[in-house]
């Protein structure tokens, strides 16, 4: 059905490349107006509306596959284009991701009931003394999008909090972020804390953040280092045996 939703039509104006515009239009021309409304609300980051519309769609008999493809992912595709072309920036991307999470909260039980389990459980946090979270939040967005369950501990996270969360959620992976050279050592202290209580080899530990290097990660005993968000996802997948690095 051609797009009639005014908000979504306005979003298409941001797509300058004709082949991209035609592709996006073709996605929406085959989908229901409810999906157009859902995609628009995801793009503008209205998580409450995405939540409501996802519930409405499921109650109306739309399949989880259709909602995921035509409402959520199609909306995220436009977010990606707007971000690439500098119409929006990282904060808007994260707000859209939060809206997607609101929709996925209704899809995940259906996935689980169909035997599609999360590919792993990850605890993520910025270390003690550090309040920077943008990189961590981008990693979390992409990890969830890849099928991981992620528990976000936020910023200024102590070693004890990391340990409690890993134990409580039986996490496969712990991801720590630091943006300051002064807080980077707290990553090593957290790894030491895991060793002291005998939990070090129960969990894979990955680290990331602008001042970090592979060498630093190796020196402090981390299992891996992600230089950017997509590397973080690929590393996490290798930890749970999904893929080999450099494939």
């Amino acid at each position, binding site marked *: 059905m051609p797009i009639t939703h005014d908000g979504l039509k306005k979003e298409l104006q941001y797509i300058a490349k004709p082949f991209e515009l035609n592709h996006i239009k073709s996605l929406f021309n085959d989908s229901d107006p409810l999906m157009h409304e859902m995609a628009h609300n995801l793009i503008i980051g209205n998580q409450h509306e995405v939540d409501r519309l996802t519930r409405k769609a*499921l109650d109306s008999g739309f*399949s*989880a*596959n259709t909602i*995921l*493809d035509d409402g959520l*992912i199609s909306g*995220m*595709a436009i977010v*990606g284009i707007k*971000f*690439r072309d*500098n*119409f*929006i*920036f*990282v*904060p*808007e*991307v994260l707000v859209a991701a939060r809206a997607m999470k609101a929709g996925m909260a209704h899809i995940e039980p*259906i*996935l689980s*009931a*169909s*035997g*599609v389990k999360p590919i792993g459980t990850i605890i993520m946090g910025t270390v003690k003394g550090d*309040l*920077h*979270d*943008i990189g961590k939040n*981008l990693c979390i*967005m*992409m990890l969830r*999008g*890849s*099928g991981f369950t992620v528990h976000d501990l936020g*910023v200024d996270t102590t070693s004890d909090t990391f340990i409690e969360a890993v134990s409580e959620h039986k996490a496969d992976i712990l991801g720590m972020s630091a943006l*300051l050279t*002064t807080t980077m050592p707290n990553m090593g202290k957290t790894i030491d804390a895991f060793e002291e209580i005998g939990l070090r080899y129960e969990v894979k530990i990955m680290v990331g953040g*602008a001042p970090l290097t592979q060498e630093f990660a190796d020196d402090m005993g981390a299992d891996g280092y992600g230089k*950017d*968000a*997509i590397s973080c*996802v690929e590393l996490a997948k290798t930890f749970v045996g999904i893929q080999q690095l450099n494939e």
Partner: protein
Amino acid sequence: MRQEVDRKSYKASIERLHDIFKDMSKSVEKVSSWRCPYKNAKDRCTANFGCRNQDRSVSPDDLYVCNDNDQLDYRSAWET
């Protein structure tokens, strides 16, 4: 009627989402070289920490204005 997911279709969807995120990751790297990632499209600051580029003369419910000119290293302005 219990909903079921078409697993093959779901796998294709996740791969599509992964491609979108992979492109976003490249965009992040590119834009972060000149623009603070906490600065939104309305030039407001979304950081939960202080920064010398913040103009805090806004109403209590508003985000601070970001005065960075996107020309210099923004990280040096972050308060640590």
